[in-house]
């Protein structure tokens, strides 16, 4: 068993920042990550990091914009923390050498971004995330922080008191991908989950193949509530064959969307008569899908984004990297042909419920980054707000876990503040399939009896995981997970996409149920202990199923149209009934739905919900 003060799971922007922060506090910290740190998907972020750095800008403005962008579903304490801490964190990055783009006077550049009242998006060319990730990894090397890379975290070692609020987390169980050994990691002071996004729940996403939402699923099954899962952001212009993102800049420069008939549908079918292609992400995404659904899509799949009329000179000057992206990943030369594009999953606003210090309701368990939901983004994330979230809340979680004295959090976690029970009418029973013999492969929640001492608890969790792995490997001729995974992904893309209607959501739940049943027969054909990706993907598929279900349950429950969540039957934002967060707790194998109110009370003002219009 490995032992450290703080264990950070995941080495993207959030994980790296958390580890550095914990070390700043003097803790012995280690990172456990299924990918080598520089392979994390934070590297893919292009746009930039929002921070109020300049004269004329203020954290209050940043907070206001964020709250408005969230469609009033963000919690003010979290949003204000983000806005207050991000300038310092961004300057910190600069002092660590990050290669930001520069102004004439040598200061870091900032640019305007959608939904922001001030150009406060600090950037490094079209590769901000890459620079951020590498700069932070460099600091890790400098500090000599230990990294267990290519170690997959399978489970959390959480005690099993009846109420999640009474539980505590003492470590994790890791699997060394290279050698196949399973070992416990005991964390004396805390475990920080920073496992990133869950885009693989959908079959078309800008996220990496490794973004399977492991952290969210593990925490969920350990009893930690997950929040606002129904809010998924879709990006309207991604390449159909890979999901690679084509920046909004193309439309910003004057790129035009055409359907199969060559019609400029944004205008001709009245999706956005004023803004056309420049309408907001969700509007454009829905327009594109409507075209495809009504038979005017190309190959019944995508639409065309044409920028040829801008002229080669202008394209090369301003959008050069788009030419490469389109050629490399789609085999299309955008100077010769229009680019095929379609909407793709991009970001999960929801995640593990935390307070503004990154702590969950289970003591000693923290979460930060895309896997967490302190509720900064509410129902819709503004561009450039995820990267500051990583460093701000990564740092806070790290400091807190390592014992820094911090202000008491204002956001209650678990069922500690106001909460109300929820109910949703599902066509099939969600949650575990009882009696399918899936046994340990689908074990839930609290790892071991609460009277165990922490070491034994981690040991127990490790043994249990070992049994689960062995049983997967034993079932050599079981079903291949890939088929199950793609069925779930397809169903999600069909029914829980930018368009959501009751019947479709129900169908998705049925499909997920079917997938669960099939998953009970899953097995791993590859019998090797060396780098067994078959095994890992099989485990990930389980996480995908759980999260797909959570997203769908949330989407079915929330009967309004807010932010990224569109419901056919409910076309209005309903502040009367729905200014509240959706939470799901995994209770003995079945999801329990409940709600908690949104906190709109800020430090020195209350944010009054206004109509979102841009």
């Amino acid at each position, binding site marked *: 068993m490995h032992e450290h003060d703080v264990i950070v799971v995941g080495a993207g922007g959030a994980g790296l920042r958390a580890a550095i922060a914990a070390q700043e506090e003097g803790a012995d910290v280690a990172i456990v990550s299924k*990918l*080598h740190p*520089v*392979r*994390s*998907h934070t*590297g*893919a972020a292009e746009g930039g990091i929002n921070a109020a750095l300049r004269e004329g800008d203020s954290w209050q403005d940043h907070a206001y914009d964020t709250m408005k962008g969230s469609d009033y579903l963000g919690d003010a304490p979290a949003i204000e923390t983000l806005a207050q801490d991000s*300038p310092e964190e961004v*300057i910190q990055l*600069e*002092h*660590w*050498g990050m*290669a*930001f*783009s*520069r*102004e004439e006077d*040598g*200061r*870091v550049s900032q640019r305007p971004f959608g939904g922001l009242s001030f150009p406060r998006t600090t950037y490094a*060319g079209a*590769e901000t995330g*890459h*620079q951020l990730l590498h700069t932070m990894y*460099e600091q890790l*090397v*400098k500090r000599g922080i230990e990294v267990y890379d290519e170690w997959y975290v399978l489970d959390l070692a959480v005690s099993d008191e009846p109420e999640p609020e009474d539980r505590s987390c003492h470590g994790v169980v890791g699997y060394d991908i290279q050698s196949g050994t399973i070992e416990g990691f005991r964390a004396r002071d805390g475990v920080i989950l920073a496992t990133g996004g869950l885009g693989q729940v959908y079959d078309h996403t800008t996220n*990496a193949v*490794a973004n399977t939402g492991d952290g969210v699923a593990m925490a969920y099954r350990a009893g930690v509530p997950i929040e606002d899962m129904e809010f998924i952001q879709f990006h309207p212009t991604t*390449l*159909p*064959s*890979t999901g690679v993102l084509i920046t909004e800049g193309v439309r910003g420069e004057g790129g035009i969307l055409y359907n199969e008939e060559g019609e400029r549908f944004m205008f001709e079918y009245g999706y956005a008569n004023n803004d056309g292609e420049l309408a907001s992400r969700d509007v454009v995404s829905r327009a594109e899908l409507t075209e495809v659904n009504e038979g005017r899509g190309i190959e019944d799949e995508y639409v065309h984004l044409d920028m040829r009329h801008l002229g080669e000179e202008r394209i090369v000057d301003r959008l050069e990297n788009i030419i490469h*992206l389109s050629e*490399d*990943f*789609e*085999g*299309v030369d955008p100077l010769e042909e229009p680019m*095929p594009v379609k909407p793709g999953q991009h970001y999960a606003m929801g995640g593990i419920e935390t307070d503004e210090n990154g702590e969950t309701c289970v003591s000693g368990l923290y979460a930060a980054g895309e896997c967490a939901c302190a509720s900064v983004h509410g129902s819709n994330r503004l561009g450039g707000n995820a990267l500051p979230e990583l460093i701000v809340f990564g740092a806070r979680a790290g400091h807190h876990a390592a014992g820094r004295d911090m202000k008491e959090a204002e956001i209650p976690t678990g069922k500690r503040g106001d909460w109300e029970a929820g109910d949703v009418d599902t066509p099939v029973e969600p949650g575990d399939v009882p009696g399918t013999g899936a046994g340990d492969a689908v074990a839930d929640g609290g790892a071991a009896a609460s009277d165990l001492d922490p070491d034994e608890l981690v040991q127990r969790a490790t043994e249990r995981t070992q049994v689960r792995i*062995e*049983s997967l490997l034993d079932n*050599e*001729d079981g079903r*291949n*997970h*890939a088929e199950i995974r*793609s069925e779930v992904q397809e169903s999600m893309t069909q029914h829980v996409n930018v368009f959501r209607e009751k019947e479709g959501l129900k169908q998705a739940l049925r499909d997920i149920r079917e997938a669960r049943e099939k998953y009970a027969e899953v097995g*791993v*054909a*590859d*019998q*090797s202990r*060396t*780098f067994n*990706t*078959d095994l890992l*993907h099989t485990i990930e598929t389980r996480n995908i199923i759980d999260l797909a279900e959570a997203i769908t349950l949330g989407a079915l429950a929330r009967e309004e149209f807010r932010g990224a969540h569109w419901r056919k039957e409910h076309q209005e934002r309903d502040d009367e009934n729905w200014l509240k967060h959706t939470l799901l707790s995994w209770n003995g194998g079945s999801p329990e739905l409940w709600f908690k109110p949104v906190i709109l009370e800020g430090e020195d003002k209350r944010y009054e919900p206004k109509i979102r219009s841009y």
Partner: protein
Amino acid sequence: MSTQLPEQVDDESSADEVEPQPEAQERRLQKKRDRAAEQERQRQAEEAEKALDDEDTYHLKVFRYDPEIAGKKEPRFDDFHVPFEKGMTVLDALMYARDTYDSSLTFRHSCRQAICGSDAMFVNGSQRLCCKTQLSDLEEPVRIEPLPHAEVVKDLVVDMEHFYDQMEAVEPYFQTNDLPDGELEEQRQSRENREKVKMSTRCIWCGACMSSCNIAAGDNQYLGPAALNKAYRFTMDEREGEEMKQQRLEILEQEHGVWRCQTQFSCTEVCPKDIPLTEHIQELKREAVKNNLKFW
């Protein structure tokens, strides 16, 4: 290992055992036979389909090796026929082959957009990122091997430890003695200087360059193009100051530093991020010489 289960059956031949088998095992075997039959049918169907439109499939020859699995201990090449779709990359084809034909086919990949650097492989004789390589640009059969000059872990996965060691040997982190005093005050950097280091900051640690370099292949201690480029990124950053530059050049000037480079250019040719590696290394050599001249 769950011991309650009947002894695992290794292959079909044990089905002829004379001893009566427990019912569960018999069922299991039956299931297995059915599966095998189904797989065979599927394979035949696929074969038939393939014959129909041969143009629309791509023929991959993929290196296979697994130190633990009987049939794979001896390295071999497996053939896969993958239906082609417009825009398909080598990585897409590998994923298709894995998900459809053989789930034990092993390779690293994650971002699918040339930013995580996990899937550098040896494709048709040169180091490439699979996710950034269009199948249609390649001649058939497409031969896919793990990166040369690196220990193979399994199939297309190589051990990157050595590469990481070299990257980390050049003090790959920003160091400076003069940070500005003011709160929220950044260090100034001229645009020219940022332009100068820009390309060098694009490295995604894929290891393609290192694998392509003959010198690195022959000399384990040679820092290699990627690490030298990493060093370049800091040495040339004006924010670090003269003193640091001195310290950095001392690292680079070691015997297995810049002088090992024989300007073979293959690193530059394979780099998926188009980093002018040779140029950077050469510039460092000149810097080092200039630096030495000062002491004469």
